[in-house]
């Protein structure tokens, strides 16, 4: 019986794909769906394709991460999904509503919080500012105040609630912004780099509040962009890795990391010296290599096909006259998956 269904399901899927313009048949459970979503920016100087044929399906209840270097197209994707920007071509649905045609209705059901946000009015106190935004959603004033107090309390901002927003630290401010996103109880919450530039403690508070908020209602969905690999790994149910406007991989963090499971991952620490990256990449059996400078030493990450490649690496290092100050074998991270897929590290991609 099971086998039978299995054999049948591709046929059903292809049928729904043929039926075309409506979100696919299981759309009631999809929080976000995009089809060949493309966005081109034209300025006087240049034309940039920020998103290229992006196909995404995010289910209700998922905490979905969009991970990629600067300029990958993360913010562009978010802006299209929250109706601030039109796609150049392709389609996008949020909570089964078309972001182009049904944008007015959709705005009742979503919220967006971006990292480093400075929105609002300096004369207002935290509670007043949050209340003001709640009114833009037509919330009942009393209910809004209650909800705001509850959320401020949970984020340790109960006292700061009576401060003017200009007196907040950046961590407090970002927590206030998060409260703004949560208080209207959106069906889908969009967080664009919500922990960027936050200290470790504040970032942890923001992450755990997002998780707690999701746990309250299993149909709530969060789409979060980040360029912190570890954040995506810890927080997200599923992750799409984007680079230069394209999704290069998608899946649970565990699955993505499994794609580099067969490789031997080695961190090699070298004292400064002649550039080595290209020579290391040229070695047979080196799947990918990246380097970053840290505390005056070069930290190379190498993906090796097997242990036998290591001696060849060491010969090259010695040949270049570089001194090894550390060598460890370690567990794969999402960063390794990125390097393997793209061939370069996120930092290299950002440098252009």
């Amino acid at each position: 019986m099971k086998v039978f269904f299995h054999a049948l399901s591709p046929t059903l899927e292809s049928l729904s794909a043929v039926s075309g313009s409506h979100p696919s048949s299981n759309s009631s459970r999809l929080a976000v769906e995009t089809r060949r979503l493309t966005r081109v920016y034209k300025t006087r100087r240049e034309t940039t394709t920020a998103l290229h044929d992006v196909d995404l399906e995010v289910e209700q209840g998922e905490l979905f991460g969009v991970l990629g270097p600067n300029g990958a197209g993360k913010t562009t994707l978010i802006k299209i999904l929250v109706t601030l920007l039109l796609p150049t071509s392709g389609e996008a649905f949020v909570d089964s509503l078309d972001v182009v045609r049904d944008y007015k209705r959709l705005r009742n059901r979503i919220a967006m919080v971006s990292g480093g946000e400075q929105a609002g009015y300096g004369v207002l106190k935290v509670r007043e500012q949050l209340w003001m935004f709640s009114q833009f959603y037509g919330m009942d004033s009393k209910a809004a105040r209650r909800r705001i107090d509850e959320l401020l309390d949970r984020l340790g901002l109960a006292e700061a609630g009576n401060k003017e927003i200009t007196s907040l630290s950046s961590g407090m401010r970002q927590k206030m912004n998060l409260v703004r996103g949560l208080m209207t109880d959106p069906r889908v919450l969009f967080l664009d780099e919500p922990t960027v530039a936050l200290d470790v403690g504040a970032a942890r508070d923001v992450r755990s509040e997002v998780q707690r908020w999701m746990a309250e209602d299993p149909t709530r969905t969060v789409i979060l962009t980040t360029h912190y690999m570890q954040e995506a790994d810890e927080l997200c149910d599923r992750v799409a890795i984007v680079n230069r406007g394209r999704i290069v991989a998608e899946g649970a963090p565990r699955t993505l990391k499994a794609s580099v499971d067969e490789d031997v991952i080695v961190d090699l620490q070298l004292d400064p010296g002649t550039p080595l990256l290209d020579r290391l990449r040229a070695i047979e059996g080196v799947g990918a290599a990246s380097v970053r400078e840290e505390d005056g030493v070069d930290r190379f990450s190498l993906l090796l096909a097997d242990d036998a490649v290591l001696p060849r690496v060491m010969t090259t290092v010695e040949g270049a006259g570089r001194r090894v100050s550390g060598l460890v074998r370690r567990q794969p991270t999402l960063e390794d998956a990125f390097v393997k897929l793209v061939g370069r590290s996120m930092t290299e991609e950002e440098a252009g």
Partner: protein
Amino acid sequence: MSAIQHAERSPLRIFLKTIVARAYPRVVAANRHKSWLFLDMALPMVGALAMVLVYQGLHAPRQYLGFVVMGGAMLAFWQNVLWTMGAQFSWDRGNGTLELMAVSPTSFEAVLLGMAGGAMIMTTVRAAFIILIGSLVFNVTYTAGGLLPAIGVFLLTLGALYGMGMLLASLFLFYSREAWHLGDALQEPVNFLSGLYFPVKALGIPAGTETLLVAAQVPIFALLAGVALRYLESRARKDGKLVTRWE
């Protein structure tokens, strides 16, 4: 489950609540800083004083002094419109507030009305003080018959000014700097009609026509602001420029 209860709130409810909420920072919070109050009061007073001296120097008839004091009060309104209304959306865009308004189910029209309404309440209170103090200081007397139409014109001009303020706020988003010149150009007819430069009656325009002219500005500006904003919103979504933070 909250998913099922998640009823959409009616657009009218959102519209009205937005007006009140957006007026709030203007009316309540702005009074928190008394120094602003002083500036808003002192500058128009100085303006009124300068004009009174000019009029006295010209040996203008005493009955025009009332207009001059009123003119000083209008100056306060004008500055408020130009600075706080016109530039407001540019500020709002600069710090991302405009973006958040756009993502919410509210409308820019409601935001503008709240902005204008809040500012009008604030400035009316201040203007009343200016007129009161100015009248006492310069010993202006009003006849009951002259005062009521004057207040009427005053309020109508106020409406016209803020209608224009809404329009300016939208236009500033399009043209940033160039809009300032447009603002200057638009200032003239309002100044003229509100009697800031000279009492219109001296020109022989009947008061009824004056009132009509001023009154006509209210719906015209409000309408134009609405058209500009709708265009603005659709362009913003297409270009990704007008609403987003750094152009």
